[in-house]
């Protein structure tokens, strides 16, 4: 069994109109090498499902997104994602805006193969009134409580980035927070994982094996992508690149901002991309953020 593939191998398997879940959280551990490959492709009309960071802005800027399912889009120290805002404020982005916890609940429902999971979050709020597809349900038990029935967020594909993987599809997430990548993996028809390093087979001690958060049977393909989360962080290995993110964000104020970002950072291969960001050594030594 060998699930090793390449970023282009992954993107070639995607189709227009797919629902794509992207792991990580805000500017943290996003599968950016895969996202950059997607940005180089002709894919369009995607439904993107994410705890959004710069990858959402980039996909918006490149005109790839038909619909966004999200709870937030932010780059943390740069709170507002400029290209997401642009599209949203132009009224050109179809959205399903969800509470962060409801979003997780939708992924869980998909992973558990149930049509919905009940929740209180969202009731009495704009989440219910602005998402006409959301329904409520009355508890069949004596409490009779009305709850929101959070529909399953079934994904065609999940794209994730992890610290380590092997050719079999085993993965390790060694950062302090594993976020919700395991929920994305289980909610998806197919799951592609990029990793800082891919081994032939992980042979771990018990303490290290606990960094595995979802089983390899959920993983369709594995890509080796060293520093592949850049410009987002990948704890404990490297922090986010605020210099890069600021340049990206500032560019949005200019007419040709995306075009010039695209030329500099997207229209090249990953090795050249890392070179243009100061090289492997610089990226690998980006300090971890202090919260």
């Amino acid at each position, binding site marked *: 069994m060998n699930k090793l593939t390449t970023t282009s191998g992954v993107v070639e398997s995607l189709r227009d109109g797919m629902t794509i879940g992207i792991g990580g959280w805000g500017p943290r551990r996003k599968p950016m090498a895969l996202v950059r490959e997607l940005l180089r492709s002709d894919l369009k009309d995607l439904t993107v499902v994410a705890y959004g960071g710069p990858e959402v802005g980039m996909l918006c800027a490149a005109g790839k997104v038909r619909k966004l399912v999200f709870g937030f889009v*932010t780059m943390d120290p740069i*709170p507002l994602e400029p290209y997401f805002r642009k599209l949203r404020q132009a009224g050109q982005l179809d959205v399903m805006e969800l*509470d962060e916890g409801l979003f997780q609940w939708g992924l869980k429902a998909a992973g558990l193969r149930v049509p919905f999971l009940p929740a209180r979050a969202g009731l009495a709020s704009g989440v219910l009134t602005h998402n006409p597809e959301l329904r409520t349900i009355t508890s069949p038990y004596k409490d009779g409580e009305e709850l929101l029935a959070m529909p399953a967020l079934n994904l065609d594909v999940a794209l994730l980035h992890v610290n380590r993987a092997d050719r079999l599809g085993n993965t390790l997430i060694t950062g302090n927070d594993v976020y919700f990548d395991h929920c994305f993996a289980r909610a998806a028809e197919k799951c592609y994982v990029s990793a800082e390093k891919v081994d032939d087979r992980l042979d771990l001690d018990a303490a290290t094996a606990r960094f595995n958060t979802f089983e390899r049977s959920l993983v369709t393909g594995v890509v080796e992508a060293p520093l592949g989360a850049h410009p987002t962080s990948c704890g404990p290995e490297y922090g986010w690149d605020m210099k890069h993110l600021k340049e990206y964000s500032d560019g949005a104020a200019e007419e040709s901002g995306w075009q010039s970002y695209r030329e500099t950072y997207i229209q090249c291969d990953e090795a050249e991309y890392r070179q243009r960001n100061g090289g492997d050594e610089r990226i690998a030594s980006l300090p971890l953020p202090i919260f």
Partner: protein
Amino acid sequence: MSNNSFSLAELMIVAASEAWRGSGEVLASGLGIIPRLGASLAKATHSPELLMTDSEAFLVEEPIPVGPRGDYVPKYSGYMPFERVFDCVWHGRRHAMVGPTQIDRWAQSNLSVVGDYKNPKVAMLGVRGLPGNSINHRNSFFVPHHSKRVFVEGEVDMVSGVGFKPERWNSSMRSDLMSIGVAVTDLCVMDFDGPDHSARVVSLHPGVSFEMVQENTGFPLGQVVGLSETSHPTAEQLAVIDKLDPHGLRHKQLKGNPPGIRKPEEVRS
């Protein structure tokens, strides 16, 4: 013991810390520098029972100073990644202080968009965790610039955090799990404990009159009986704050870093 030389930010940190008094063993989440210092001051002084994180993924028993840590090495007592925060939120043992863009007379809050939902004038972060937080546990507000733009006249443009507006609820929804603490602003401390959960001024910051607060609020305010001045930080509190904020990030949170004691004309300017 009161100290005459303190900033408005420090007064607000102390006022924020009071929000958590008596909350019990709940996860105290202060979002932003002043709320976080407020929560940290509460834990470090009157409410050591509060749960607190390093703002990333670990529980700590000693609040972590804000900003670069230097030689400070955090001591962890437990684990609280986002997934467990979500569990904790829905279970209800949390009290957060958040800074929404808009708050209305029903204590509903907005972090999503300003203007029309489909064609917003300003798109902000998104609702984040506000719908789930607000319906499950106690929430307080932090408002660095008290104005009618924040405390809006009508309903907030997108109800992200739920409140007491009856039309948004029906009788089979549980509204009893939500609770609103206080709003700490640069003018006063408010709550929503007036008749029918209407907003009231609880204390006024030095140099601020009730009329000034009302002028800058889009809906009618009540006031508590015996409305008094917001408590000044004590020298002990200021020393703790300084330890929790060794780089003085608190001085950069409010425009011009105003002093805690202001004349009315200084407040207006």
